[in-house]
């Protein structure tokens, strides 16, 4: 793990004096501290907190906002231990600076893996407490009383004995900030019984701007003299333009310049509509460089399934515990099964885009973009021009969805904008159309899963073997991290073994594949395909042993009261024991990075069309302390909707290396008329918060599949469980 800002005492003060805060360009009313506080005097108390004499508390938010609410919840954590009055807090966008604001789990500014709150929670609480201590010390000196006699209420220091009160803003006028941040021990943090903010919903800062059109995404930016750019990218990674005929494109009114790039052809025009038309009019043939040419995803699924079953294939061992071969030999019953998952597309609502403005000499650039990692964006822009990172000015914008797509190490859409702007030395808004976004997609990887399980005579699960063949992901999306993790591709292979279940013998193996198709992390990450395979398989094992699937899972988590509570909650919510006639229920359980989830789906199946209808989904979720409970619910609802798409309809196919889908017309994301009733019970146990951004997603497919099996006796082994596949399985 990278050095955490919490342990760096320098982190408290370094740069504080000359600190320039970013302006929240994305939110017109949440301006940067400089504007907000003028004309009152300010005391910069730390790189995180600046106090103005009018009582305004400006707090830096280090996370990127893509709808998950971290832009609000992280500063709220500081405000809690600082005892700031939330009504007086201004949230300030953190500038790109890994030394001060890095995500402690990654070592750089990166908002992903649903871990913003998880990773920053304790450091931010401590920063808040340190600033509060500085205020207390100042007040103690001012009144000449022992600091131990002082307490705080929101935005005010109180000396009970004398009845005196000192507003935080008043302290800003004379505050002396120590060289070294005061020590605050974990046990000195505010006890949760005294929380005023954590656990109580506040209005998300970005939300009012999202109902009146004022929220600013990079696609909305307009600068004086700005041109518009589009890029026809090679259909296959690694291919290059061969023959380019741009005569027809040049004939279109408004075209300014057409530039040949190593990986495509760029069109710059006076309007976006002209740029898109120019791109469409290009006639380009491509070299056959690039590994994915010739790849077919249907064939790939079969090949991966064969690899997963082939004992001769070299494997990476991810988990080994006990002696699986032996335990399987001794087992009363052995079951084996295959599962598979397809490519999935992010489909974030805002197609990828960025605005760049390269200086006339090409030695400086300003960029406007929403990204999951600002520091990567700065590096990408600097590298595209061969200039130093400090020559890059980043304007951080809201993201119209991230889901893993806006945080790759190359953030290629930033690169696209910079090279186009550099070609004309003018500001250019580079936009991908939806068709570009699909065709240039970086997909959730194809996988095949081979599972074996052994039950003893009493029906107890004694051995589990899971072998997964899957595209490499980290090698493509983040070669830097791939080096650091020494080829252990956690994005593809983490959590294969259901460690939350008490299974004495377990073996989890990965069989990395490389077909040359662009791959990516995506909401749900490895757990998504893993849970489809393992939670379906657990169901098969329960049925094989003649045990109720809920009871079977209960027996596997018997030592975890939190887990049992969730399974009990979800069976109660769904009336698990009530008999249904035309519908059936399926259950699943998971521990996703310490967030516990149990889900039940109720489904029916149209045997004529093969359509699965999901009527209800019940979710019980325990993410530890819920910093913003309503955000937990919102993220859980969204995760269920995503899970539904993965389970039933979302499918990218590849032929000769080329993506076959075009737009939302043939890539089917869930719409309102496909959404079940979603019922959520939040059980927030008082332990360190874990993540919530994707945790409910992976169980959706297996609980649907388990319900279909309960209803029809037929097991669906391939996600998405499309009508064709359901019909084929019913006939078989």
């Amino acid at each position: 793990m990278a050095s955490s800002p919490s342990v760096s005492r320098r982190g408290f003060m370094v740069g504080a004096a000359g600190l320039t805060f970013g302006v929240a360009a994305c939110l017109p009313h949440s301006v940067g501290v400089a504007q907000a506080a003028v004309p009152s005097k300010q005391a910069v108390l730390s790189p995180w907190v600046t106090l103005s004499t009018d009582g305004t508390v400006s707090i830096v938010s280090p996370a990127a906002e893509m709808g998950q609410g971290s832009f609000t919840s992280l500063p709220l954590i500081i405000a809690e231990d600082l005892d700031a009055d939330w009504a007086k807090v201004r949230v300030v966008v953190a500038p790109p600076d890994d030394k001060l604001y890095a995500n402690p789990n990654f070592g750089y500014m990166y908002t992903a893996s649903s871990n913003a709150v998880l990773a920053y929670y304790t450091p931010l609480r401590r920063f808040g407490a340190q600033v509060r201590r500085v205020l207390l010390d100042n007040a103690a000196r001012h009144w000449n009383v022992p600091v131990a006699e002082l307490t705080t209420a929101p935005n005010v220091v109180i000396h009970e004995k004398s009845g005196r009160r000192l507003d935080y803003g008043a302290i800003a006028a004379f505050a002396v900030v120590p060289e070294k941040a005061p020590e605050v021990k974990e046990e000195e943090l505010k006890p949760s019984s005294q929380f005023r903010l954590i656990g109580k919903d506040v209005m998300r800062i970005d939300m009012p701007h999202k109902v009146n059109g004022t929220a600013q995404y990079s696609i909305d930016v307009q600068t004086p003299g700005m041109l518009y750019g589009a890029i026809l990218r090679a259909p296959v990674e690694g291919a290059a333009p061969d023959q380019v005929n741009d005569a027809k494109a040049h004939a279109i009114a408004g075209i300014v310049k057409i530039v040949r790039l190593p990986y495509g052809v760029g069109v710059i025009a006076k309007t976006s509509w002209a740029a898109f038309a120019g791109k469409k009019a290009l006639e380009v043939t491509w070299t056959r460089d690039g590994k994915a040419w010739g790849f077919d995803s249907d064939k790939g699924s079969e090949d991966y399934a064969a690899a997963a079953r082939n004992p001769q294939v070299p494997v990476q061992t991810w988990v080994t515990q006990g002696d699986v071969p032996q335990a399987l030999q001794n087992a009363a019953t052995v079951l084996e099964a295959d599962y598979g998952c397809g490519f999935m597309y992010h489909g974030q609502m805002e197609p990828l885009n960025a605005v760049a403005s390269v200086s006339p000499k090409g030695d400086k650039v300003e960029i406007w973009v929403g990204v999951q990692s600002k520091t990567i964006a700065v590096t990408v822009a600097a590298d595209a021009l061969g200039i130093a990172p400090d020559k890059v000015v980043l304007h951080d914008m809201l993201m119209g969805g991230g889901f893993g797509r806006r945080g790759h190490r190359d953030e290629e859409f930033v690169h696209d904008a910079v090279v186009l702007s550099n070609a004309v030395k003018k500001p250019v808004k580079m936009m991908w159309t939806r068709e570009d976004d699909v065709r240039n997609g970086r997909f959730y990887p194809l996988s095949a899963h081979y599972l074996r399980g052994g039950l003893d005579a009493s029906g107890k699960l004694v051995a589990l073997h899971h072998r997964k063949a899957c595209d490499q992901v980290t090698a493509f999306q983040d070669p830097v991290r791939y080096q650091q993790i020494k080829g252990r591709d956690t994005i593809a292979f983490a959590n294969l073994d259901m460690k939350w279940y008490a299974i004495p013998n377990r073996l989890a193996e990965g069989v990395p594949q490389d077909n040359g198709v662009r791959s990516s992390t995506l909401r749900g990450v490895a757990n998504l395909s893993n849970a489809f395979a393992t939670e379906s398989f657990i169901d098969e094992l329960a049925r094989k042993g003649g045990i109720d699937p809920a009871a079977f899972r209960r027996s596997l988590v018997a030592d975890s009261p939190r887990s049992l509570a969730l399974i009990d909650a979800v069976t109660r919510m769904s009336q698990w024991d009530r008999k249904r006639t035309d519908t059936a229920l399926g259950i699943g359980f998971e521990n996703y990075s310490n967030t516990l989830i149990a889900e039940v789906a109720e489904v029916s199946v149209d045997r004529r069309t093969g359509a699965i209808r999901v009527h209800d989904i019940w979710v019980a979720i325990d993410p530890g302390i819920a910093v913003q409970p309503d955000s937990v619910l919102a993220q859980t609802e969204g995760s269920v909707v995503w899970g539904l798409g993965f389970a039933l309809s979302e499918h990218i196919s590849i032929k000769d290396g080329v993506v076959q889908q075009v737009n939302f017309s043939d890539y089917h994301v869930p719409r309102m008329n496909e959404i079940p009733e979603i019922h959520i019970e939040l059980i927030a146990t008082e332990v360190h918060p874990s993540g919530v951004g994707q945790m409910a997603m992976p169980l959706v497919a297996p609980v649907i599949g388990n319900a279909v099996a309960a209803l029809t006796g037929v097991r669906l082994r391939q996600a998405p469980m499309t009508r064709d596949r359901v019909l084929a399985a019913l006939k078989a």
Partner: protein
Amino acid sequence: MAISFKVNGRAVDVNAPPDTPLLWVLREELKLPGTKFGCGVGQCGACMVHVDGDRTFSCQAPVAAVAHRSVTTIEGLSAHSDHPVQKAWLAERVPQCGYCQSGQIMSAAALLKDHPHPTRAQIVEYMSTNICRCGTYPRIVRAIERAARES
């Protein structure tokens, strides 16, 4: 030849080629970026506006088609973000990334104009033109029900 129409009550003349989709004219020439580009093919509803009061995919309407007509965008739905749908949207905390929400709100406002008290089934059918990738659908339903109740 300039094309004249009204946007949010204001008369405008635009010089874009007549086949340019209204969406791009609104966003670029008229600097009203609240109306969003999601798919460009009438599949997602991010670009939804009202033309003479009827909801319209602005990515599918050539600007020539709105000549002498009246267009309302999210920026013109209300003066102070206080249309009942906008108020309900905040009360139910609908938006996540927010990118689809202009279109959702414009659709919802059109629905309530025609059906002040829609059934749940009517809401679901009408709103299925609009994709929300973040999955805010359950809240959209609740917000429309609230707006119908409170307006």
